[in-house]
C-alpha cells in the first residue's frame, strides 16, 4: 500500500521523519540536486496513504561498455515502515529503470561490511558480494561492493566475484 513516485525537490522539506534516523545520512543540497538534475528517474520515494514519506531511493547510471550500470547511492526506509519489504520495492524500481530505460549490464551498491542485516537483505534480493573495498567508509571500515546482473548481461560476467580486495583508489567510479 504504497505510492512510489519520482522524488521532487520540495520533498526535501518533508523527509525529516526518514532522515532523523541515525542510519540515514543527510547530504548537502548540491548532492541531492545533482542527482535530481542528472538522474531524475533514479530518485524515487514511497508515500503512505496519509502522505507521509515512507522511504526513498537515489541512484545513478554510469560506466562504459560492459561496465555500464545502475548504482544505488542510498536507499532508506523510515522506522515506522520497516519490516514490510519497502526497500525491496524501491530497489525494484531502480532495477526496472536500469533495465528498461538504460539497458545497463548490472546494478551495484556499497554497504558497510559490518551491516549484516543490510547485507542479508541485499542477498535476498539477488545481490552477490562482488568485491571488498578496503577502508571505504571514512578510511576506517571496509565496504562491500554488491552486484546484481541485469538481463543484458546474459552470461552474468559482471557478478563474478573478484578474488582480491581493492582500495578505494582503485574504484572506477566515485
Amino acid at each position, binding site marked *: 500500500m504504497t505510492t512510489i513516485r519520482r522524488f521532487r525537490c520540495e520533498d526535501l522539506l518533508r523527509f525529516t521523519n526518514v532522515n*532523523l534516523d541515525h542510519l540515514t545520512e543527510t547530504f548537502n*543540497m548540491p548532492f541531492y540536486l545533482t542527482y535530481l*538534475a542528472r538522474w531524475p528517474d533514479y530518485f524515487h520515494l514511497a508515500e503512505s496513504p496519509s502522505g507521509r514519506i515512507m522511504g526513498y531511493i537515489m541512484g545513478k547510471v554510469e560506466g562504459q561498455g560492459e561496465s555500464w550500470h545502475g548504482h544505488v547511492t542510498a536507499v532508506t526506509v523510515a522506522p*515506522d515502515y*520497516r519490516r514490510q519489504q519497502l526497500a525491496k520495492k524501491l530497489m525494484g524500481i531502480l532495477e526496472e529503470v536500469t533495465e528498461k530505460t538504460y539497458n545497463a549490464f548490472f546494478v551495484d551498491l556499497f554497504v558497510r561490511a559490518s551491516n549484516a542485516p543490510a547485507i542479508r537483505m541485499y542477498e535476498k534480493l539477488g545481490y552477490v558480494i562482488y568485491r571488498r573495498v578496503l577502508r571505504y567508509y571514512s578510511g576506517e571500515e571496509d565496504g562491500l561492493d554488491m552486484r546484481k546482473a541485469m538481463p543484458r548481461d546474459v552470461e552474468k560476467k559482471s557478478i563474478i566475484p573478484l578474488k582480491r580486495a581493492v582500495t578505494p583508489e582503485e574504484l572506477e567510479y566515485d
Partner: protein
Amino acid sequence: MSSAKAAIAERRLRPLRDAIDTRNYKQALKLATALLAKHPDSAYVLALKALVLERTGKPDEAVALCTQAKDTKPVDDLTLSTLQLVYSKLKLPNQATLCYEYACSVMPNNLEVLMALFKCYVREYLYVKQQQTAMKLYRLVGEERFLLWAVCSILMQVGSSGGGGSKLVPLAEALLKKRIDSHGLHELEALMLYISILQQEEKYEAALEVITGKLGELFSIQNDKLRLQGELLMRLHRYVEAADVFQEVLKASSDDWAVFTSYLDASLGRCQQATGGELAVELEEHEVDQRLEKVLKLVSELQACIPAGELKRGLFLAHVEVAKRRLLFRKKIGTEDQIREQSAVLADTIRSFFSRFGFLLSFSSDISEYLEYVDETHRDQLSNDLHEASSQFQNESPIKQLRRKISAFQVDEQLLSKGRATNTDLVLRVTKMANLYVESLELSADLDAQESMHGEELLVLATNLLTELFRRTQNMGFLLEAILVLEFGLYTRRYSSQYKLLLIDLYILISAVAPALDWYRTLDVKYILIETISHLILPGLLASTRWADLQGLLKDGIKFYENHQTESADLTILAYNHSTYSKVLEFVEFKERLERSHQRLVFRSEAAMLSLKEHANSLEELELALAELDFGRIPLHWGAEENLLSLSYNEDLQSRPWWSPAPEECLLVGPLREAGAERNWHYVENDEERKKRENCWRSSVKRRCLTPRILSLLLNSVKETNGALPSGSDVADELEKLTGSYLLTLGLSTDTFEAWLQETTSSDNLFETSAAKPVDLMTSSLFWTMYRLSSKDSKSASTVTLFVKTMGCVLEEVLKVVLRDLIEGQPELKVLAPGTGLPTVSGLISECFAWLSVYLQAWHKQMQPTSGKKKKKGSSSVEQNSVSVDTHLSTSLESIRAEAVLHLEKLQSVLNEALLTNSDQLQDVSNATLTSNMAGSPGAVIKVLESSRCLEIATKLAARTTQTQHRWQADDLLRNMILSQHEALDGVKSLCTLRLNNLKSLKF
C-alpha cells in the same frame, strides 16, 4: 581576434594553472605576478591572478584585477570563463554577464559564447533575456534542447509575472507544437514539459492525444504512461475508460495505493471528494453497490495473484476504503440507523485488516484516517476487540504478538477520547505499557544495536500518557517520570530519534537547556533539516542565556541558506545541461521558497537581535552593533510587509509532541492548558488555525525586525537638539510610524494603547488574560514610553507612571511563578516547572532591561556637562553645550531608573534564593521521590522499568553501543537536569547583576 592568452606561451602558463589546481596559491601568486610583469595587459593572467586573490581572501584586489581584465574586452573562452568563475565567487554575476554580452556582440554566431551568456542570465534569474538568448541559439542550430531552454525561461516568467503571464503559456505551447509537428520530440523530459503546459491550459484532450500517439513511445516504463493517461481521462470525465486504464496499472503493480484510489474514484465516476467528506456522486444506491462490487471483484482477483511471501497490504486495506466510501454514501442519502450500520461494517473491515496486518509497524498509521469515520457508539467496542484479538494469535511468533498489542494501544490514542479516562485509568494503562515494554526488551535481545527494537513505540505512548497526567494534576512527578522514561529508552538504545524529539521538548520546557542541546546534537541536524527541524531547539535557546550555543546554531543556519543561494543557479544550469527541464523549474521555485522562508527570517532576525543583546551592556558597544546593521535598516527591510506576506512556512510540525503542536505553544500549563484537555493526541490543526498561527508568527518575527531600528531611532532621538525631538523631523516621523507598527503586531494601536495597558495591568491575572506575552507587553510599553519621552509630549509624565506600573506588574507576576516552582512548590520536588518563569525572566533581562539601561545611559551621557568632548577642539557649539537640564525629564528618567533598580534587586534576591533551593535539591535528589505506592501517583512506570528483571536486560542492551556495562542511574540524570536548571538560573542572575550595576551607576 587574437586572444590575450595567445601572446603568452603555453609552457609559461602551465605552472601557474598547476599551482592553482593544486591549491598552492602562494606559488600561483608569485607566478602570476611574474607573468604580469612581462605581459601587463594579458587579460587571462589578470583573471587568473584575480582567481588566486579571491581564493586567498582578498576580494577587493580580485575585483580590481577583474575590472582591469574586463576593460581589455576579452573574447576568448578561457579568459571569459575564468572571469565568470571569479565574478561568481565575488557575488558579482552581472559583471560576468557584461563580459559575455560584449563577446556575443562581437561574435553573434558563436555557439559556445552564446550558451555561456544564457547561463549568465540563469545566474541572474533574468528570464526574458534567457528566453531571447535561447531562441537565438535555437535559430542558430535548430536543436531541440535550445527550444526547451527557451520554453523553460518563458514558463519562469509566468511564475514571476504576478498574473501578467496569460499569453506566455500559449506562446510556450505554440513553440513546442510547431517543433513537434516538424521534428517530433526526442526526450521524455521535453514531452513531460509539453504535457504539463497543456495541463496548465486545461487542454486535456490534446494532452491525451499526444501521449497515446507516437510521442507516447518516449515512455520507457509503461505504467508511468498509463497513470498519466488515467489522470487525463479523469479530467475529461471519461470515467469508464479511466477505470480500465487504472485497472491495467493495478494488474502490473497491485500495491500502488494512489492508483487504487484513483481506480475507485473512476469506478464511482467522480473526480474529487466534495468538501466536508461527503461523496459528490449522483448515483442510486444499487448503482454504487454494483460498482463497488466490481471493484472488490478485481481486488479479490489481484489478491489471488500475490506471490507467496510477498506482503501487499493495499489490496486488503482496499476493503476498508470501500467500506468508508459506502459510509460516505450513506451519510448523504441514508437514515441515522443506516449510517450507524455502515459504521459497524467499517469497524468490521478494520478488525479484519488487524487480523491480517495488526503486527505491522505501520498498522496504526495505515488505518488512522479510517478510525475518524467510526461512529462514537462503536469506538469502545472496536478498541476492546483489538486488544482482545491481539492475544488470540497464539500461532504467531512472540514478536508479532507483541506488535499486535502495541498496535491496539496505538489505535486507542486515535480512537478513544482523551478526556474520558480517569487519572487512575491512565496510570493503569501506562503501567500495562511499561510491562509490555519489558517483554519487548527481552524479545529484542538479539537485535543489532543499529536496528529499532520491537517495542520502541511503547515508551512514546507512555510519555504521552504521563504528560497528560501532568497536564491534569500539575504534579511535576509525572513530568519528571516522562523524562526518565525517555532517558531509559535511550539508555537501552541511544539512536531512537522519536525519543529524542520528545525529550528535547520536555527539557526545554523546564529550562534544562544543556541536556536538550546534547540530545539535539546527536540528531545531527544539518543542511535542509535546519529549515525543517531547528524549531525544536531554537525557541529554547533563544529564551536562555547560552549565547555561544545560540550563535553557533544561528551561524550554521545562515550559512546553509547563503550556500544554497550561491549554489542554486549552478545546479539549475546542470539541469539545463542534462535536459531535465522539470527540475529546472523545480530548482528555481525551491530557491525562491527558501529565500522566502520564515525559518530563514527567524535565523537572520535573531542573529541581529543577538548581536544587540551581546553588546547591550554599554551604549558605545550597542551603537557599534547597530551600525553593523545599518542602524537597524537591514532587519527593517527583511521585515517589510511585502516580504512578510510572501513568507513560506516549511517547519515540520508533525515531528512535534502532542503537548507542543508548535514552537512556544504549550498545552500543559498556562492559557492553553484547557485547550490541551479538549484536543486529542493526534489532533491536526485546521486551515483556519494554521492561518492564525502563521499570522502570529509573522507578527512575532516582524517585532524582531522592527526592534533594532526602533532602538537606533530612540538613541538617536536622545542626541537630537536639546534632547527634544522636533515633531515633523525625519527621526520623529519614522519613530512614530515604527512604534505604531510594533503595537500593531500585538493588535494594538497608538490611540488606545495606554487605555489598554491601564486595563491590562489592573487585571488580576495578567498573563492569563493578556493577549501579549510578558516580554512583548513590557517591550511595547517601554518603546512607547521612550518614544513619548523623546517627543517631549506634555502627557509623558502619565506615560512614565504607567510604564513604572507595568514594569512592576510584569515582574511581580513572573516572580510569582518562579517562587511557586522553587520556593513554595512541592516540598520534595523543588524544580523549575514548565510555565512562564525563567524564560520570561531571561527575556526581560536580556532585552527589556537591556534596552532600558542603554536608553538611560544615552540620556545620562547627553546630560553630562561637556562630557567626552574635551579632546575635540573646534567642535560645534551644539556638541559643547550640555543639554539644559529639564527637571520634568530628569524626574521621569530617575523614577524609571529607581523603580527598575528596585525590581531588579528584588529579582536578584529571588534568583539567589532559587539558586540556594536548587543547590539543596541537588544534594537530595533521588528518583525515590517519584516512587509512590498510592494509586494514581507518579512513579508507577519507573518502578516497572527499574525492576531487576528489566534492568538486567536493559543493561545488556545498553552495552551493545557503549561497550561498557554502565548502569542505569536515574539519580544522576535528575541531578544533571537540576544542574542545568541551576546554570540557567545562574546565567540569568549574572545578567541581572550586570543590568543592576549599570543602572545603579546612573543618576538623574
